[in-house]
């Protein structure tokens, strides 16, 4: 099971003077159970690509398939199936806390399940479950106004609102943007745990290459609406020509390793993580002393 993009192109405001092609000929397959990052400069088409994944917009050309179901069916009879398939993909926009509107946290999270037409008990169960997944204590927060919470907590509530729909795939557009370092770390941990323990397939956009190396097993690199690379972060970030074309910087640890290598310290070329650099340096240091 997977999300498949087949030769997807998208043009904004087609047939007007403001016509602009945002995506051209993108084909890729996101396997269930994977943890995929999407990287690219501003205006590379990341947000447009994301909106295709749950059928918010349909490709001008090409197809998007979720678990083998085309999200833009030709026959009317298949629409229900397409809608159900699209609901397998949960979409968390940038600054999702800006979409909160209800009086209490529990009511806001219940908005999604209510739209599915579930029973009261089922809804309460899902709200409780989603809040626990996002590390929000049900008894403490359920009757609190979401607007009385901190930024990080509001974001958790918003993501819980998405999780209450029990999506198989969770798409997040820069989930940690605008959070303080602590909120950032906690949210990253929660997302990693969702992937590891709840087996939710994760797709996230990030501008932080170190995060991508640390979290993702695959990275999609976009530039000017084209797919530049789709591979493991370790392999992608070693290609400086490719990164330059995409307008991206390699991870800081990788840059540090390159500097150390220039200074004559032996360190492998595919060093990407902070821990790897630290342990290598420690190793050399101990070797020299001993």
């Amino acid at each position, binding site marked *: 099971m997977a999300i498949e993009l087949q030769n997807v192109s998208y043009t904004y*405001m087609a047939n*007007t*003077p403001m016509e602009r092609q945002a995506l051209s000929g993108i084909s890729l397959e996101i396997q269930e159970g994977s943890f995929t990052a999407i990287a690219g400069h501003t205006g590379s088409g990341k947000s447009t690509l994301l*909106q295709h994944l*749950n059928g*918010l917009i349909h490709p001008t050309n090409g197809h998007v398939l979720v678990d083998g179901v085309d999200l833009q069916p030709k026959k009317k009879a298949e629409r229900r199936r397409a809608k159900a398939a699209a*609901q397998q993909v*949960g*979409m968390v*926009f940038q600054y*999702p806390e*800006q*979409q*909160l*509107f209800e009086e209490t946290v529990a009511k806001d999270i219940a*908005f*999604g399940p209510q*739209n*599915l037409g579930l029973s009261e008990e089922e809804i309460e169960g899902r709200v409780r479950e989603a809040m626990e997944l996002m590390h929000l204590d049900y008894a403490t927060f359920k009757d609190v106004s979401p*607007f009385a919470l901190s930024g990080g907590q509001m974001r958790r509530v918003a993501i819980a*609102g*998405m999780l209450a*729909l029990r999506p198989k795939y969770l798409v997040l557009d820069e989930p940690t943007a605008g959070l303080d370092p602590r909120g950032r770390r906690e949210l990253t941990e929660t997302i990693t745990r969702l992937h590891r323990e709840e087996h939710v397939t994760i797709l996230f956009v990030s501008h932080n290459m170190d995060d991508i190396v640390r979290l993702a097993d695959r990275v999609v690199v976009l530039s000017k609406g084209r797919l530049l690379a789709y591979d493991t972060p370790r392999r992608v970030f070693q290609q400086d020509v490719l990164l330059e074309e995409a307008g991206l910087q390699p991870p800081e640890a990788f840059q540090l390793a390159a500097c150390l290598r220039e200074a004559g310290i032996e360190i492998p070329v595919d060093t990407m993580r902070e821990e790897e650099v630290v342990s290598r340096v420690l190793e050399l240091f101990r070797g020299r002393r001993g």
Partner: protein
Amino acid sequence: MLSDITIGQFFPGDTFLHRLDPRTKLITLIFFMVAIFAFHTFGIYAALTLFTVILVFSSNVPMGMILRSIKPILWILLFTFVIHVFSTPGDSLFRLWRFDATLEGIERGTFISLRLILLIVLASLLTFTTSPLKLTDAMEALLSPLKRFGVPAHELAMMMTIALRFVPTLIEETDRIMKAQESRGADFSEGSIVARVRAVVPILVPLFLSAFRRADDLALAMEARCYHGGEGRTQMKALCFHRLDVIAFLFTAVFLTVLTILSLQP
């Protein structure tokens, strides 16, 4: 749907329409609008239409945009045309139930439709070729004599600038919030009227919140730059009339006088 809104769109360019002082454009536009309503004869309408077409072509604004500016009033046009065709007394062409379609009716209907089209096209040309900032500057300049009578010209212009500035931002924001709520299973296109009105709440609450937040931020940013109303405030790009403006005024005066003389002749 949301992308159909053409108000406040501006096409940068360097044609003579772009170079004219915005005050010139506003004043001459008002004169032409009065003229469009004042005259009734076929020949003069032909002249005004020709004049508008020449302006459209010389403005370098894409033809599609001009046509799109007419689109929102298409139904009004059709409605007024049909009403005139069937309600004007005269020689009956054919009968539909109890109403007669008359030749005079068709003539009047065409005039009224042409009037509306010319008005919209000329007004759109003004906004297409003038940046919103210049336009509000011109409004402030033209209203400032009224300051003596307590008309807050500067404040009105500033409010106008801010409102125009935030139209695209709010459209974008609405689109984003709608998509976010749609992703949570909200449906804005189906159900009874009550259901649809209720479906608007999840859009309006976040939209108002963000609009207030933006207003707050903007007020703070303006105060941080010592904004305290229009008193003693100068402009970086002060409006100033050039030779082109004099020519435009003279042309308008001559053109409209000739039309008036022609229309007065039997």
